[in-house]
């Protein structure tokens, strides 16, 4: 394999993404709205003839703002509606701050979708426990859309979501709507109560011990700050949800999205290609260690 001659390889043109994998396609902003003080959602449609590629829940795109740079952002929309490409992110860096000021009709560049996804098709019949922290709800939302659309195929569907304050919570209207359904279990908590908040106060991991699911038959999907994910993994493990039943979405520096530039390596994994969604036993050797 090592000595496979280049000439023996398949003609690679068909596999080349967008000519050479590094050129974005242009999209127009069809909508942009604030989710909270610093988090916003943009919807994008392709400019010109091309259409968005289908994506799977948990995947991400590289978004380019003219001249400023390109960053990886997970897709927060419905996989059943690939025409509506939706991204939710926080304005924390140069590129995202510029994106926060985009208006309808503005143009940005898109490469993707990249990476692995929440393996929902393989989890039919299972209780699904989604654990999100802060902005971590964004990459979980496509999974929720899919679970809701195929609700009959799954056991219980439980969302545990933690935000800093009630005002920081993402997708509040949708959370309320889902909460009113009898076939979804939505639990939210905040680090700090404000206003007329009468709900849970505390870490999202504290919701795990009493969440309604059957541990032997449950699969957890986790996304949030790494520290939160560590504690979530432990709390789930205590309830009997083992590494092979636990998926998490990791964040690393991603530049190319195609497992070539090397930046996002996490042990043997290229997070951009093998992740961002990993099953816990794949990354267990490193997860929770410093400076991997």
């Amino acid at each position, binding site marked *: *394999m*090592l*000595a*496979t*001659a*280049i*000439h*023996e390889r398949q003609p*690679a043109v068909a*596999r*080349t993404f967008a*000519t*050479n*994998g*590094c*050129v*974005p396609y*242009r999209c*127009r902003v069809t909508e942009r709205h604030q989710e909270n003080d610093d988090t916003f959602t943009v919807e994008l449609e392709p*400019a010109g003839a091309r259409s968005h590629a289908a994506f799977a829940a948990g995947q991400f795109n590289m978004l*380019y703002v*003219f*001249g*400023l740079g*390109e960053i990886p952002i997970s897709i927060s929309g419905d996989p059943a509606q690939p025409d509506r490409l939706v991204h939710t992110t926080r304005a924390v*860096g140069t590129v995202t701050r510029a994106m926060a000021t985009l208006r309808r*009709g*503005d*143009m940005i*560049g898109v490469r993707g979708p990249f990476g692995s996804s929440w393996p929902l098709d393989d989890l039919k019949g299972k209780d699904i426990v989604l654990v999100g922290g802060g902005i971590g709800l964004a990459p979980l939302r496509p999974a929720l859309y899919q679970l809701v659309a195929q609700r009959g195929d799954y056991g219980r569907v439980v969302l545990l979501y933690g935000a800093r304050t009630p005002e920081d919570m993402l997708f509040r209207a949708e959370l309320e709507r889902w909460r009113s359904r009898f076939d979804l279990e939505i639990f939210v908590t905040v680090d700090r109560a404000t206003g007329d908040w009468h709900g849970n106060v505390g870490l999202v991991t504290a919701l795990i011990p009493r969440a309604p699911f059957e541990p032997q038959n449950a699969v957890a999907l986790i996304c949030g*700050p790494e520290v939160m994910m*560590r504690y979530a*993994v*432990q709390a789930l*493990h205590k309830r009997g949800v083992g*590494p092979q039943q636990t998926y998490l979405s990791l*964040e*690393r*520096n991603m*530049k*190319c999205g*195609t*497992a*070539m*530039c*090397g*930046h996002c*390596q996490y*042990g*043997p994994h*290229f997070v951009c*290609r093998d992740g961002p969604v990993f099953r816990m036993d794949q990354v*267990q*050797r*490193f*997860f*929770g*260690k410093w*400076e*991997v």
Partner: protein
Amino acid sequence: MADYEQLDTPSVVLRADLQRLFDSLHARGYETIAPRVENGAIIYDEVTSVDALPAGWTDEQEGGFYRLEGRDDGALFGYTVGPQSWKRYLSPPIRRLWQARKNGDGFEIVHEDAPTPHYALIGVRACELHAIHHLDDVYLGGSTIDADYQQRREAAFIVAVNCGKAGNTCFCASLGTGPAVGPGYDLALTELVTEREHAFVVTVGSERGADVLADVPHRPAAPGEIDLAEAIVAEAARHMGRTLETTGLKELLYRSFEHPHWDEVAERCLTCGNCTMVCPTCFCFTVEDTTDLTGQSAERWRRADSCFTTAFTFITSGSQRASAKARYRQWLTHKLATWQDQFDSLGCVGCGRCITWCPVGIDLTAEVAALRAEEIGQPQPEAVLEMA
């Protein structure tokens, strides 16, 4: 392609006729890149005449040390590898990927179709050929390929050279990557310098290699010449200055994540990135977006990058490998362990460049030996689940 080796008996080309090889390559539109001496080292650059090769030069190498010395036999390839590698030509360290221009209601991407350079790489050593195959794995082996690399790679004509000398920092024999050239070349040479003649035993590795050889005066090699060529390479294999024990290497490094030896290396490591820049398999790059002063046009550039920079792992919460220890550990672990899981091979070809060109002579073979010797062993895949 590799069949040619089996079918054809080796030929002999005399030193006096070697220029014809260069001429044939030129006539076929190749730019000939070959070793030559510059600033006290042997580098790879455009060389059009055999006379510009480093005839009569050899090198002395040690950790953080490289010197050219004369040799009196006039050999053209009587040295080992220098500070540069062929990745420079197959994947240039700095290149523009695309340009974009603002227009009325957005921007347009300007595609560039630069002509692909056709390089004949002359003097590719066994370890270097393996390194090129490793770059193939990275840039061409996945579901997305690097089209620029592919074009350069497919265009490249490879004249490999069997090593007649092993350097003090060489350890290809430990890894099975040399000193005898493996498949993947168009032509392979073994230099014979005897009292009777100065000649090259030539093996053909491809159809186009055969075409080129047809332009160069040659005769079938005599059995004695073939034996001598093999003996020279076998002798080089016996004189490797370094060794690297590969048994259980991956497991050793995976086990050693928290080994105290990394702290000790970090005291010496300059985090300057030289090892990654000279390494023929280090493939990492970064991209930079730039604009002109008017803000009307933008460009994306690709630059060689190194896991020794703090920016390499930068995300919102900061650099993920802030300490020198973590960066050295990442580099070494990638070369020798995680690469095996990624590409089913070692990421190291035993060329010794990282040892020679480390400004303070850090020696990966010694660091691995130290890890082995000091191993405290802490396999703990369950650790995270046992935290309080």
